[in-house]
């Protein structure tokens, strides 16, 4: 009885944590290359909306999933392009992208489906939910290995720490940052696909609900490492799952407090883990 309860809690934690995990991996990748990624929220929104839209018209959820990832990548590419070629302030560009994506999705709902707030039900890949959970964890491990153990990872990190030195070593920091940002967008888009087609079978306004920003928090708490960020993302998932499990079971605890639980926990963690964060040295700084 208790064991099955714990198991179902952990299962829920994995499901709630995976979209955050996927986006946070994107965040790690782009930030280690030197691009601050405030736009994860918008990239997740774009991925989720595009996935539902494409799945609706093709009636093939797999094409929808691929389309969602591709659109996320395109948004990430746009951020990377603006940050490298136009040298815009990355935080400003990210905020702009978030506005464009959330507004664009809401507009698209009216424009395509002629109804506000939510798409009709679309073909989904709910059967692949657990495969995507596993994929997320495998991706975290793979990215950790790539970043810390391979020449590509070393080059990417060099662009985030000291792009001038990277340039001197024959690396093109602009190209690396651009592609890192695009792949980051693809990962965040996959997080959106997970929500729209994995857990549910539709897109609704506000369904991302700040997960992109939580993923950003996971990046920082995870100290810019893929496994660290993934771990923190899953802890956020666990706290969310706990909130469901405790709801109504503890009379003296107001439910609003339970809703705030993940965020209060994050604040307390900030108190305890101070001064141990060092972002990539050249993060957010335009090159050259």
């Amino acid at each position: 009885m208790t064991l099955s309860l714990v198991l179902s809690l952990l299962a829920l934690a994995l499901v709630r944590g995976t979209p955050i995990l996927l986006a946070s991996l994107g965040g790690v990748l782009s930030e280690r290359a030197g691009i601050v990624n405030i736009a994860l929220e918008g990239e997740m929104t774009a991925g989720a909306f595009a996935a539902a839209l494409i799945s609706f018209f093709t009636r093939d959820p797999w094409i929808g999933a691929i389309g969602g990832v591709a659109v996320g990548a395109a948004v990430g590419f746009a951020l990377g392009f603006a940050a490298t070629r136009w040298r815009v302030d990355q935080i400003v560009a990210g905020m702009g992208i978030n506005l464009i994506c959330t507004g664009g999705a809401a507009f698209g709902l009216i424009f395509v489906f002629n109804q506000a707030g939510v798409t009709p039900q679309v073909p989904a890949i709910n059967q692949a939910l657990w495969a995507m959970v596993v994929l997320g964890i495998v991706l975290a491990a793979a990215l950790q290995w790539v970043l810390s153990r391979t020449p590509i990872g070393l080059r990417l990190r060099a662009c985030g720490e000291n792009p001038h030195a990277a340039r001197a070593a024959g690396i093109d920091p602009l190209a690396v940052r651009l592609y890192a940002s695009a792949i980051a967008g693809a990962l965040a888009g996959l997080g959106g696909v997970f929500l729209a087609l994995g857990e549910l079978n539709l897109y609704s306004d506000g369904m991302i609900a700040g997960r992109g920003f939580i993923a950003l928090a996971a990046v920082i708490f995870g100290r810019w490492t893929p496994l660290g960020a993934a771990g923190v993302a899953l802890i956020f998932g666990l706290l969310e799952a706990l909130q469901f499990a405790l709801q109504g079971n503890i009379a003296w605890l107001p439910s609003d407090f339970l809703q705030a639980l993940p965020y209060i926990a994050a604040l307390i963690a900030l108190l305890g883990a101070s001064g141990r964060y060092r972002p990539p040295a050249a993060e957010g700084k335009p090159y050259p």
Partner: protein
Amino acid sequence: MKRESVRALTIGTLGVAAAMSLAMLASHVSPILGFNAFFYGAFGGKQQIAETLASTTALLFPALGIAIAFRAGLFNIGAEGQLLIGGLLAGWLGTRIDVPPALAITAIFLAGALGGALWGAIAGWLKAARGANEVISTLMLNFIAASLALYLVTGPLRAPDAAGPELSLLPHAYWLPTLLSQTRATIALPIALLAALALRYVLDRTWFGYRLRAAGEAPEAARRAGISLSKVALWAMAWSGALAGMGGAALVAGELHRFNTQLSPGYGFIAIAVALVGGLEPLAICVAALAFGALESGGLALQAAAAVPKDAIHVIEGLLVFALAARRYLGAKGAAAQ
């Protein structure tokens, strides 16, 4: 104005107009009718101008607050939560006091400022004492503020006359006087403009403003010059929150006349765009707030007249942010061409 800023502004405006035309065409609306509806909705008459000014005010307070934090190098994305807590304290105090209206309105604004300042100061203290990243802390505090407000108004502060998650109505005498009768444009706007003037003076002409800018622009140099970065972080976040909280108080006393947890449809987030478009300069932010206020009210009219959803306006706002962010590049290209 410099040649390149004119150029960037022209490109930005044309880009936005083109995007809006495309959106209208996509919705099978003639752009001429659409723009007509848009401008009528934003400036077409007393009521429309008042709506624009009301949106301007709601955006201006948090945008000024955000500018303080950003100038100090602190990425405060918690204006939404600070606005909410400020509004909560203001709305609570407004139903509890019995004094002359002028005094009450002053007290309501001060309560809003205090609430926002306290909420902002939490993030400031975490930064100062523990070096905690303010992006995370202000973000988390937004979520916590929403839960806290909901808990308080449905629990301990529950009002007998509340129809939703809200406090009691303020006494009629405490409602902010309107600038234009029978509209939502209130004296909160001149108060916000005064705050912008004061902020410009403080940032440019005072020792506090100097330390704040030094900490933001060259933290290491500021530290070596004996400026305490911790103190700057704490006070910048507190003042930042205070202005956002005053925005909450203005919404409570000027528009809803009570506190409601749905007080702000994301003003604290749009205000980030306003502050950035205004280049973090208080007076430019006033102009940006007016532009965004017009977009908000014109967008509503566009939705009613031409079935272009209001959210399309967020796309426009995002493009505006993007265009202005890219102005250095566009300006540099312009200079190179000459």
